[in-house]
């Protein structure tokens, strides 16, 4: 009886573990399909729905993604150019980076460059309704971000960021 119980528990644990691994592999494969050769130029349309605000904040512009950095150029509603690299988020023309932005910068870099190694290290990956779902592993990131969706068949077409405080950011990407 005991042996049977142990064997059952063992198979159940193995099944859960293998299901997790399987899901993670599927997610990595989906990310592989979404990745495109760099450098890459895209148009973006961002819609930020913030708690307490009656309407979303909408912005649009261009993205230039290379292996080292992303140039995030907002054209509407305000002209702004941000350089995102591993050291942080820098505003064009300003002296330094936004202090403490290095983590979020590295994350954006990894998502938009489809850096699977970093994504696997920082998130639990799975596939949900054709999108790769990323749930943060670390407490610091998890206290801010609930999950991130990266959607698209052969390229990243949509990135959705769900924050713990109820804010959502939806970034639609399209070839220029």
């Amino acid at each position, binding site marked *: 009886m005991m042996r049977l119980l142990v064997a059952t528990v063992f198979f159940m644990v193995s099944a859960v573990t293998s299901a997790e691994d399987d899901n993670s592999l599927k997610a990595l494969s989906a990310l592989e399909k979404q990745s495109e050769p760099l450098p890459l130029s895209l148009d973006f349309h*961002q819609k*930020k729905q*913030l*708690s*307490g*605000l*009656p*309407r979303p*904040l909408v*912005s649009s512009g261009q993205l230039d993604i290379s292996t080292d950095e992303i140039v*995030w150029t*907002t054209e509407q*509603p*305000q002209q*702004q150019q*941000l350089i995102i690299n591993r050291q942080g*988020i820098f*505003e064009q023309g300003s002296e330094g980076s*936004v*202090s*403490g*932005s290095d983590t*979020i910068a590295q994350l*954006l870099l990894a998502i938009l460059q489809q850096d699977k190694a970093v994504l696997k*290290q920082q998130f639990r990956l799975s596939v949900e309704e054709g999108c790769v779902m990323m749930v943060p*592993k*670390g*407490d*610091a*990131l998890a*206290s*801010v*971000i609930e999950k991130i969706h990266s959607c698209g068949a052969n390229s990243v077409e949509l990135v959705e*960021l769900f*924050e713990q*405080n109820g*804010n959502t*950011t939806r*970034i639609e990407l399209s070839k220029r």
Partner: protein
Amino acid sequence: MKGARAATATRLLLLFVFTVGVAAALSAQLFNTQWSSSLADALPNEVSDLQRSYLENQQPNAQQLLLGFESQQYEDTEILNVVQQQLSILLRAESVIQLAEMTNPEAVLSFYQQQAGRLATQRDRQMLASGDYEALITNAQKTLQSPAPVLTSLQQDPLLLTQRFIQQLPDLMPGYESHGGLYTRTSQSTHQVLVPLRIAGDALSVNQSGRSVQVINDFTAKVSAQLPNIKVYRSGLLFHSDAAAKQAKQEMTWFGGLSLLLVLALLLWVFRSAQQLLYTLFLLGVSAATGLLITLLFSTQPHVLMLVFATSFIGLCIDYVIHGFIARSHGEKAWSALKPALWLSGLTTVVGYVLLLLLPLPLLQQLGIFMATALLTAITLVVVTLPWLPEPKEPAPRWQQFCLGMTKLYRQMRHKTTTHWLSVMALATLGLLVWSFTANDNVRLLASSPESLLQQENHLRETTDFYFQPDVLLVAGETRQDALERTASLRSIEGSVSLYHYVVPVSEQQQLLQDQQNLFNSQVGEDYLQWLGIGQPIRASESPEHPLQNQFLYPMEAGWMSVVRLKQPFSADDIKEKPGRLEHFNPIEHASDALTEYRHSMQLWLIALLLVSLPILALFLRSQQGHKQRVQAAWQVVCVMTLSVSTALLLAQLIQPLNLFHCIGAMFVLVLSIDYGVFCAGRLERQHALQAIYLSAFTTMVAFGALSFSATPAIAAFGVIVLIGVFMSALFSPLIIESPDS
């Protein structure tokens, strides 16, 4: 016969009443005594209230420790999983071991979310105060259209001032990610998992420390078994104290056990009876109890370190008993010849210890009271009660023959010029010591830790980058807010971290809210709120306690103290100290300075005792002889004392620079040298004196000298001085010219 019996019974009754009286009074006094054990209490009086409060807050019973697991072979998630799994087993089994979360990002973020709008960077506050509204609004709009998450509520903080404040907070654990109290970081392909732990039990309990280290070692061993080749690093006082306790236990077992056996065997062989041992135990017990009782009556807060300093009393007590028993065994004449010498050497030593009361150090004053009282009691008891005992057997014949041989040898060696070359040797050694004197009182040199443990500690210190310097700046305030407000002026010191970097005082928060109100009442402010689609901002309530507050803000007896921690060594140009309000403090430097002060005082005392001994001995030694002979005998004794102590210090500094513990050893050597010198210069038959001196010297050298092999430098320092000093004293005191009436 009947009368003699009655007299003995009366004496014994009186002794019994005295003993019981002392024991009862001591028990009552001990019950009301508050012993000091913290280093702060042992430091000289000039430690300020601010520094004392800081030291007291830095010595909690709970101990912090840090474990690090590192590998290039395993991913951090793989290491984290194994560590979490084994750690949960450990924490379930050992309730005294807890995770010591260093920073809780969730709690920190939650604090700032509640305080949204009340905190802003210095630059933003200046812009707001100067009316640069458009720039602030543009900055907020740019943040809103960037892809970065918005951390705080826009209804409370439409300008995102607190979001920018959060982004410039100093990171206490740079580059680390928190996982429910564990921390991971990958740097140059090395994956590191850190486990900060807290031992909730009593840190002073050796048994508990040993048990905790054992289970932590089991835990790391299990992780290593699951992840072969993983590197494990440990840091924390617990590991050092456990290593020191094990070292001390091993030393006690071997050195202590062997030396005790040797001493007991020698005493039993010489005296051929256990009577002497039992009497020594009685004398030690009653004298020490009396000394302690008087010390407690005069000191409001006696320090436990005083008892450590007082170990020499044991040696002196044994010495008096040995002399007493040997003199008694040689008959009434020998006993009568001993008594004046015993009083003279004892009282000279007592006067020496009374001199300690003149020093401004409470610990040494307590030592002076204890030693003077205990020695006076011991001498009185020896002189009064020893004749009540049955006459002891003469020492073993071989011992007597050996001492007789030595007496003859020294007689041949003694010469008319003995005093001259004894003087030259003493003065030359003293001169050489003064010329080559090397001291170092750094507290770090007094303890020893295994090399591997030090390497592990250094590795974590170098790689983690979240250890602070021991230097701190202490800011006093009547209230928390007051202390925090005063800390503001120190915020620009490079590498400094204080609570002010995480939260500003309420007065500044209110000013910020007022300035924001002005902005939102202006046209640009109203337009911005309209653009967002919200009304006037909601004001957050006054700040709750910051999650990091207990690392930077401490209560004092009157008021509060804000601590500024430093990542870089302190530079005196950074601040202008204001005693009682703003002080720089380095506990390690301060403890070292305190040890220097104690050493200086002990050196002064040693010199004072040498100087005081000469006139006292010249006055009372060989009182039946002429003035010249008395001075010559006293001078010879002082020469032997000087020679013994100087040689011991001179040779000891070849091993390690001199420190306080050498001086404690020198104190013991000096008072024993008085004994040996006085017994040689007195009316005692020289061979009888040597029987006692050699036995006393040999037992002291074996018992205390064995400590010189200790791995702990402080203990070894004491042992080396006693070993060399007592040897020199026993070697040179027989050169003192015998009294013609001996």
